[in-house]
């Protein structure tokens, strides 16, 4: 089973999570042009790489940020929006989704 680390609840099965898409800075809706707004709404940096993404832990209603490599599907870090990322545990640096030995990784 694939596991993901919820910053509030620790490692949980991936099935409890909903993907919320790439994190993007919202332009100021009051002074952005229609084109800038359309670009914010629709366009993505969709090439593979390490991305900041929104994820939602459904049972607890927690939205949070995950830093994930979209090529290898490795999660590097998860943290609540606005909170500084917690330090990485060097012993568990591979942090792969689906790697059950990571059960000790906690927030």
């Amino acid at each position: 089973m694939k596991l993901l680390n919820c910053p509030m609840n620790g490692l949980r099965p991936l099935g409890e999570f909903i993907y919320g898409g790439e994190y993007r800075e919202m332009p100021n809706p009051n002074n952005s042009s229609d084109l800038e707004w359309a670009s914010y709404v629709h366009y993505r940096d969709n090439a593979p790489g390490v991305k900041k993404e929104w994820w939602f832990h459904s049972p607890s209603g927690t939205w949070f940020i995950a830093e994930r490599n979209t090529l290898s599907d490795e999660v590097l870090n998860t943290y609540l929006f606005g909170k500084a990322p917690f330090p990485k545990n060097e012993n568990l640096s591979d942090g792969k989704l689906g790697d059950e030995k990571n059960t000790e990784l906690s927030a």
Partner: protein
Amino acid sequence: MAYQLLKFALGGEYKEPRFFRDCQTPKKSYDAIIIGGGGHGLAAAYYLAKDHGITNVAVLERGYIGGGNTGRNTAIVRSNYLTPDGVNFYDASVKLFQGLSTELDINLFYTNRGHFTLAHSESAMRTMRWRAEVNKHVGVKSEVVGTDEISKACPQLDISCSGKSPILGALYHEPGSIARHDAVAWGYARAADSMGVEIFQNTEVQSIDVKNDQVQGVQTNRGYIATGKVLSAVAGFTPRITKMVNLKTPIVIQPLQACVTEPMKPWLDTILVSGSLHVYVSQSSRGELVMGSALDPYEVHHTKSTFDFVEGLTSHIADMFPFLSNVKVVRQWAGMADVTPDFAPLMGITPIKGFYLDAGWGTWGFKATPISGKTMAHTLAHDKAHDLIHSFRLSRFDEYELTGEKGAASVGH
């Protein structure tokens, strides 16, 4: 017979002709370069040569032809879409498919099966009625049918779906068909090659040379090739190509998985799709059930398959056909689907002169192979999008003029 075979085996000279030349060294320049040797790219090359007389064309394929999503889909061809623009486009594709075995002189095993999209709820029935009316309006055969007609076409189907989600009716689409997807790529490759198109396998585009917003050429692992026109027809690799020219698109890459069972005697004549149960199933000419499901739930740029997929899919198949519970799944695989927000493709010209997109094929690309090739060839030849693909242009996102096909293009919404 045995003697003939032995003689042939020991003869050392096999007369079986190649489908296309084994091109190794590209010329210094071409009139057009097509990135991606899948069905779409090869079809575009074929129609460039056949319809527009442009034969100085190279198709560059990173792997081998038809090895991407052309060989990974569930081979269904249909045109029962939701928007008139979508229906017209896919209908033109179905019509091309119907004559394609003859045109390409290769047996595509194109078989007309009839296609049922099952509805398990009133809201699904409403979408089916909507699709039927749009389809009929533009002359495509689709009808809403009741459970009696579904049972008649497929008596093995448990209409109650094991009591969990009873079927209320279906959208029946008579032209729904299946075809041998590899042969589509091979057929187009051979026909394009015979008219002079050069196909390079194991040839990866590393960068695209753009000056003053005009394409100048491409850098490959076989050297630099100059050209004024580049068509990107690479499905799940589209973001990597568009990044080379700094073009932003709304595409998100999500794996789409499929699987086949062990072969059985023929019993399933029709194609069945259930949006609520997230499955589509047909029986191939080899007797395997070919089954697919919804997209994987998040962005990943790889083609690994998961146990979640096969577990979820088979439980739903067993709801529909309880007697299949002992049948084995023998293969599963994934492709990278380039999904758009409105579930319509992304085709035509771009802000970069000479850079053309044939992308955004998500879960609906195979059925569009002939018509995408034909319309993209037209677009390259005239440097202006073909009328049929106007609604699929990239700029529709800037104009908030989306082409909403979600109700007809996907399962699992």
